[in-house]
């Protein structure tokens, strides 16, 4: 690992002021540190944001759950409030990586990174999340732009993620047996008006499957999507799963999610 400067920011303002084209925020470090160790990324400055009080914590209102960006996965999975308001969100957090990763990794780091097989992006899409940054509010649907790409501008800091509490929801992941990231993860959320079927792992970026959403909005039963033949042409193929298998898994996991709602 190459030498770098370490800064600990005391508030969002200082953090974004320190940011430059050769810096990264340091939240859990679960992505940043390994990529630096492997020489895949080099930064001149790491700006630690874990000590910014405002970025941690969980607030629940009648309609939404707001989670500070530096909140760790373990805190989300253990939170009684989250368990009560959106149990599927708590179980999603519980299924990320392993205890070491959950004890350090943060929700903000996860969505800023936007790994195509990360779990949280699907929650943001399914639960109509709003991403609060130090500059603005961004709807989840407009936040995830592509593989490892988001709407964040350089130096823009996520402060919190606000999830809409659904009527019912479930997240079903078919994990990569080695890394335990999602080969396919499907987050189904039934809101008052409509149903979201957010899919992660299958394509280069998380997306809301319109076809399944429509079918389920009409009839919220797994039978309405059973046997659906999804187009696999844009799906990922790697040594763990072919596009064809992923396409099948998307439907299977969606059905499981509906049944679990």
């Amino acid at each position: 690992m190459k030498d770098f400067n370490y800064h600990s920011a005391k508030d969002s303002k200082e953090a974004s002021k320190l940011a430059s084209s050769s810096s990264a925020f340091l939240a859990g470090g679960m992505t940043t540190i390994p990529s630096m160790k492997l020489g895949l990324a080099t930064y001149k400055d790491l700006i630690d944001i874990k000590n910014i009080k405002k970025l941690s914590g969980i607030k629940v209102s009648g309609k939404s759950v707001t989670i500070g960006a530096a909140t760790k996965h373990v805190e989300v999975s253990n939170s009684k409030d989250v368990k009560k308001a959106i149990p599927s969100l708590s179980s999603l957090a519980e299924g990320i990586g392993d205890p070491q990763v959950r004890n350090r990794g943060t929700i903000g780091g996860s969505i800023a990174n936007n790994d195509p097989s990360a779990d949280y992006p699907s929650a943001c899409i399914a639960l109509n999340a709003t991403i609060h940054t130090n500059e603005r509010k961004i709807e989840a649907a407009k936040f995830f732009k592509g593989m490892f790409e988001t709407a964040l501008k350089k130096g823009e800091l996520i402060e919190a993620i606000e999830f809409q509490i659904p009527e019912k929801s479930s997240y079903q992941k078919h994990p990569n047996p080695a890394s335990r990231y999602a080969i396919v993860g499907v987050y189904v959320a039934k809101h008052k008006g409509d149903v979201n079927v957010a899919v992660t792992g299958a394509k280069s970026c998380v997306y809301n499957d319109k076809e399944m959403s429509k079918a389920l909005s009409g009839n919220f039963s797994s039978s309405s999507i059973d046997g659906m033949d999804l187009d696999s042409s844009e799906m990922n193929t790697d040594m763990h799963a072919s596009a064809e298998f992923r396409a099948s898994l998307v439907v299977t996991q969606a059905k499981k999610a509906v049944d679990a709602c």
Partner: protein
Amino acid sequence: MASLVGSRVERKEDKRFLTGKGRYTADINLANQTYAIFVRSPHARASIKKLNIDKALKSSGVVSILTGKEIADDKIGGLIAGWAIRSEDGTEMKCPGNPPLAKDNVNFVGDPVAVVIAESLAEAKEAAEKVEVDYKVLKAVTSTADAMNGDTIHEGIDKNLCFDWLLGDRQKVKEAFDKADKVISIDIINNRLIPNAMEPRACVADYNAASEEITLYTTSQNPHLSRLIMSAFGNVAPEHKLRVVAPDVGGGFGSKINVYNEDIVCSWAAKKINRAIKWVAERSESFLTDIHGRDHVTHAELAVTKDGKFLGFKNETIANLGAYARVFGTVTPTYLFGPCATGVYEIPAAYTNVKAVYTNTAPVDAYRGAGRPEATYTIERLVEKASMELGIDKTELRIKNFPTAFPFKQTLVHTVDSGDYVAGMEKAKQMADYKGFEARRKESEAKGKLRGIGVTSYFEACGIAPSAAVMSLGCGVGLWESAEVRFNPTGQVTVYTGSHSHGQSHQTTFAQIAADELGVPIENIDIVHGDTDKGTFGMGTYGSRSLAVGGIAIVNACKKIVEKGKRVTAKMLEANPEDVEFKDGEFIVSKSNKKKTIGEVAFACYLPGVRDEMKSPLPEGDEPGLKETSFYDPSNFSFPAGTHIAEVEIDPETGHVKLEKYTACDDFGRIINPMVVEGQVHGGLAQGIGQALYENAEYDETGQLMTGSYMDYTMPRADNFPEFNIGYTCTHATTNPLGVKGCGEAGAIAAPPTVMNAVIDALGGQEVTMPATAEKVWKACKNLKKSNAKAA
């Protein structure tokens, strides 16, 4: 005094391991040490056109950079294959040179070409990036099955073929097949695995200019063997000027048998720069350069009568050696594989033919089970298929072909001294509730799931091995083991063993044995291993040999202590040595009932005299002191055996295989410490089930390792396993005084076919290759649905 052998004595080593006090190679730091980083080939096959170190030499903190040229100039030898195999046509195997630093050609990704030595690790890394190597990239050979058709990797080795070996009688097999009612045939792949010891390899080399001695601390399973190889073949230093220390070692599974490039290079370089050098592998280096295991492609056939008697067996295998033949690389797919491929069965005629090929991949060598998992997988998949095709219950078919009388002369090589295979099968069936399976299958079906049951009966040949036997078959060394028992004047005992513990609990089990033999409290016994300057020459730990060979050496050395004690007691108590008995730490003269404790005798041996008298407790001919050595050469291998039964449930929609139940009923002869044996069985099962369901080392066609980290190489985790249901039958080995058999590899040997037989049973007999990953199983489920629909 109650006997300790057979009881669950708590592990003496746990305190230090659990409190972080273990002392591993990476924990060792010497004064003024430097740090080494190896520059490795990024290509699977290339010739080195130019290697330029000028820029790197100017990098800050660099002490020295050495390359293949200096290795060659200094006449440092290369890595070797320890077992010479002869082809069927009588020609000797063909092995390429394997210099510790490649000079002209590189043959796998990770092959080292230079070492950078610097004042700090960061500086060594930085400089290593500045070493410029100009490669001419050549077409790599990576596929086991096609290796013989690929470009020639090593000059003069035609078809990339190391040897084409035969064990058995082709003509007799042909005759047997001619008589058969049915021939069952199978094509299988034994997937390549990466051992993944928890502790990555490491070494610290030091040179003492005053004594001209090199000390190498290294992660080895066999420090004496390493010293021998480094001296005799590596030309690093003569044996008396080379000390090899393997301190706490965090797992080996065979991957730490070999002397590796880094051991030789660091030892040689430490003398050259006259400073200590430390090297610790990163996990990615372990993936690339530790020896890998398995990697066979096999076609096998079984000739049977219609009522299920086995008549003949054929086994045609291509075994991948990787880029070079290493220490046990050539014996693993031959003598450790072929003889066991006929399994626990009486098969009148059999042969195994193995073509061992070179490819541009990491060297393949002995990995837990070494050859016997591949053998057991071959025969047990075949027998399972036979049971399906013949319509005979899988347990009945096996029992029908078990030998019932012992010693059992197995078809190809071994004479198995003891066992009771029927009893093992019956007990396993009971433990697994074999009878209740159909009901459980229906329950699964009702949930839309597929359930399967798989059985394996295995025997294996371990506790390697009689020296005359193995040397007659080409082994470069004899596989005896040594022990030295030093009884100290004040009553404690230090036992030096040539075995090496890297997770096998020798500190406990060996102490239990010595405590019983000598009647000394276990707290007063220390087991010492892993330092060529401390104990006598020993062969080390692999092939489940520590107890069955090393343990017996301890027993024999203890017995010599007792014999001397009897003579001394007789002299002290003025009795006949024949009238002295030894029990629970006391020498008793049977006629007079007078006694001496072993402590008193030891004290007398070291202080042989009394004040005011000219009198010695030592009989004529006996020297002072109480220390005995034994070099034990076993008369045979040991032959553990057993039956394992697995049950899986498959979700046809996702292809997910859930291992629901796993039963292991093993015969390890006498068990010294049941807790330790359970640990060995659990670990072996985890690795065996890992091979069946999760682990796979995959190279692409250019020879890049695709599974070079835990993001892609599936190491099984605790939540992948059910509670293991473990039981034993016990027939004592008749070939050693403790009656013990090896237990270290059984799990890894039996589990792969057991689990795969269950998976394939659930899939209605459709073959899937290991590991049975979700996608493969999902596809098979789709086919099953189609063929069921057709049938309906």
